[in-house]
């Protein structure tokens, strides 16, 4: 396959040409309530070509018919030439890479009968349904894939990557008369069959939580001291800061560059944030990004100060910085754009525990789990799965509908204590940007305390 790509690149008349071909084998099983929805095996394949000419823009082609590859290289070149640019697009230099990067399959999912996958998911689904008669509905899904990706460009890079993934998730819906609540568990790993075998207890816990939330009051709206658990703190840093550190937001925008000047203080000295695409065995982990750049651990905030950002080759060249291996595409249907990989808040150096965070809070909220988050850069939301009131330094009653309204400049700076209990949260789902969803990412964080944050609700 590499030869076929190399031949196509060689016949290209463009100044820069890259070709990516993917072949993805996947299987999926889904239950809804007691009923099986589907059990299927799929094969998806296609190619992507991107070319650049001096004084011109990007020409892009994606296609499912690989026989068309040479024709698509020609089409992409025509498209590039139709886009005239006064200021040329430059790409930061990357040494040509040649490698076969095969990630650990940890039990190759392609060799496991579909019936076994159905049985596994049946176990987890039954665990949720068995918790209470109040669990009226469930959604359980298992999905695995092994994706083969070939990448060749006109600068001599030639890569083959084998990327496995497995995701098991379940939603339990509890209902009592008119009120409906849900609990959500999701496990996503860049691994295989062996890694998803023993999760019944987790699925029982989320079903029980859906039941418990039926009796919980809505949180009252207002500004509170808030403690985020590891999972929500991870989503928080992804939304609050991660997206701002993606250089495609600043590279063409002088005002944004000024706002995000390296060296600016964003938090107190306790705050350290980074993104590590090279971390071992995580869902956002890749040896190379989709421009053939090796991934790395990139420091973004060090002791509260902005020290770095995430780059593609184009954004790095424009800002005179180095590519960080963050150009990613969700599939051959899309171009690579600047994305996060595994984003984290580093554990506090003082070894603080949960008690140190909660001890002096008179009235506050302990926000746990994550239904999701979204950012509009300065302002962002992150939705907890559930929460507890904090009263006089203690975790008190369960509350529901806990949604935090964040502000980049205020919320980050109000993080005053960071615990030492760091974990990676290996969730399914993914990140969406520019029409590309879901991109596998991981977030990691310890418990984090925010002096004051806004929570929506009746006031």
């Amino acid at each position, binding site marked *: 396959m590499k030869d076929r790509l190399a031949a196509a690149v060689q016949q290209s008349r463009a100044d820069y040409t890259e070709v990516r071909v993917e072949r993805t084998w996947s299987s999926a099983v889904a239950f809804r309530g007691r009923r099986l929805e589907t059990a299927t095996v799929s094969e998806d394949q296609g190619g992507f070509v991107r070319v650049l000419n001096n004084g011109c823009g990007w020409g892009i082609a994606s296609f499912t018919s690989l026989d068309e590859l040479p024709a698509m290289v020609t089409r992409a070149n025509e498209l590039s030439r139709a886009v005239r640019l006064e200021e040329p697009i430059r790409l930061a230099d990357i040494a040509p890479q040649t490698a076969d990067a095969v990630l650990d399959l940890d039990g190759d999912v392609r060799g496991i009968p579909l019936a076994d996958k159905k049985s596994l998911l049946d176990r987890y689904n039954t665990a949720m349904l068995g918790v209470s008669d109040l669990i009226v509905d469930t959604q359980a899904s298992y999905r695995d894939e092994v994706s083969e990706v070939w990448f060749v460009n006109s600068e001599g890079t030639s890569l083959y990557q084998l990327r496995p993934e497995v995701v098991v998730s379940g939603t339990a819906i509890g209902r009592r008369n008119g009120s409906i609540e849900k609990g959500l568990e999701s496990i996503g790993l860049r691994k295989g069959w062996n890694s998803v075998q023993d999760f019944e207890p987790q699925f029982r816990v989320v079903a029980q939580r859906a039941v418990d939330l039926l009796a919980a009051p809505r949180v009252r709206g207002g500004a509170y001291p808030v403690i985020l658990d590891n999972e929500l703190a991870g989503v928080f840093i992804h939304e609050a800061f991660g997206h701002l550190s993606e250089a495609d937001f600043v590279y063409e925008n002088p005002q944004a560059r000024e706002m995000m000047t390296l060296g600016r203080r964003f938090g107190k000295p306790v705050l350290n944030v980074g993104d590590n695409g090279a971390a071992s065995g995580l869902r956002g982990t890749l040896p190379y990004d989709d421009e053939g750049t090796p991934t790395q651990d990139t420091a973004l905030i060090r002791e509260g100060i902005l020290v770095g950002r995430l780059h593609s080759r184009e954004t790095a060249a424009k800002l005179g910085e180095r590519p960080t291996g963050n150009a990613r595409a969700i599939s051959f249907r899309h171009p690579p754009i600047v994305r996060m990989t595994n984003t984290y808040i580093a554990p506090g150096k003082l070894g603080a525990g949960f008690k140190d965070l909660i001890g002096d809070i008179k009235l506050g909220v302990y926000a746990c789990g994550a239904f999701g988050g979204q950012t509009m850069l300065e*302002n962002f939301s992150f939705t907890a799965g559930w929460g507890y009131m904090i009263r006089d330094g203690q975790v008190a009653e369960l509350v529901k509908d806990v949604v935090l*309204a964040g502000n980049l400049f205020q919320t980050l700076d109000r993080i005053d204590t960071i615990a030492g209990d760091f974990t990676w949260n290996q969730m399914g789902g993914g990140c969406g940007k520019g029409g590309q969803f879901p991109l596998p990412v991981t977030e990691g964080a310890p418990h984090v305390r925010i002096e004051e944050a806004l929570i929506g609700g009746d006031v």
Partner: protein
Amino acid sequence: MIDSLLARARGKVDNADALWRRQEQTAVAFESGRLKAAGISEEAGLNLRVVANGRMGVAGTTAAKPDLEALLERAGASAELGETVELAFPDSSPASLHPIPTYFDRTANASLAELIRMGKRLVERLARPDCQINVAVEREIAETAVGNTAGARGEYRATGIAVAVDITRIAGDDVLMVYDQYVGADLPGDADLETLVRSVETRLGAALKVVTPPEGALPVVFTPAGLSAVVLPLEQALSGKTVLQGSSPLAGKVGETLFDNRLSIIDDPLTPGRPLSRPVDDECVPSRATALVEHGKVGRFVYDLETAARAKTQSTGNGRRGIFGKPHIGYTNILFRRGGGGTDGVGTRHTYALGGGLIDDVDDGLIVDDLIGVGQGNVISGAFSHPVGLAYRVQRGEITGRVKDAAVAGNAYELLKKIGGFGSDGRWLGARYSPSLLLEGVSVARR
């Protein structure tokens, strides 16, 4: 392709249906006011569903020359693990299909240069020194063929075009983002592009000044874009799937008046000129409109073939399927209408005023145009709570500026019981047509 696949399936399985779709997209992207990229995308795929020994299975492929025998085999293997179901495959002849225009030559034949010109015009009209402007123009041409072993066939071509504008204005540490789009099956005319420009300018102009948000249970005007958080719970609860599963709060409430009696909502796949309109659904069921809410009463839930079979009712023609996976329920075009007279409706001319003429009597409240995090949380319960993305304060009937660092919360079912007013600004936003709605007693929290 469909015919030879179904011919092979006959005799091997009890029943089968299939969908073949080919899509071709052309896109141009302007970044920070400059044309940066042009791209094309071509994709074709085949999705097969079989019922074998009473059990259902599916398989799909994007291979250029698909091995039909292998596809059939995979669907069969899927069916061995599948549930039993008695699907009522439609057997209507193509003659009974409603003829609606889905394919516009002007859209299909528009050259790359034309798409670029359209984007350039928007960039020029909206350029401001303190703003960054991105424009994306995307044209799609699709061919769809559906069929089943009961003899039904459906085929149509469709075009679609989306022109999206987003503007970011950064002043110091203040970030303002304004987004709008034109989406249609036919190319936008000058007037459509002008509407887009005016819409963006109006919202940008009113947002330059930042004011303190109010607090309390307040009247809030949700613009057509801002309505998403209120509409989403209804869309979930009116799906035959959630009704069947027992998780819809509207289950068993058909015919009951649960909403303001002026509110009517329909799903209409036969609306001319919309990209999601179609003569037949993805399971070969002829298209027709479904009244979801009629004068405040819960109307009909939407179904595909499988959920209809399990609920012992008929499909409403809301079957949707991709290349992989099995068919599922999907809405087409959702239209909000004010029942019992009034001037709202498709084709009403736009008014550019923010709030659709609903703010005159608002003493202190908000206009909400965008909320952050819609769709996350416990949507079907009706409860929502979101920070504002783009919202304006209204005082004594006037817009006084943009508010930040505020969060709105409420319950969609409660809020829609009494609608304070329907705006005169009905418009399409993607696949939804609605005016602004004034809703009373929305919780607004601030820092």
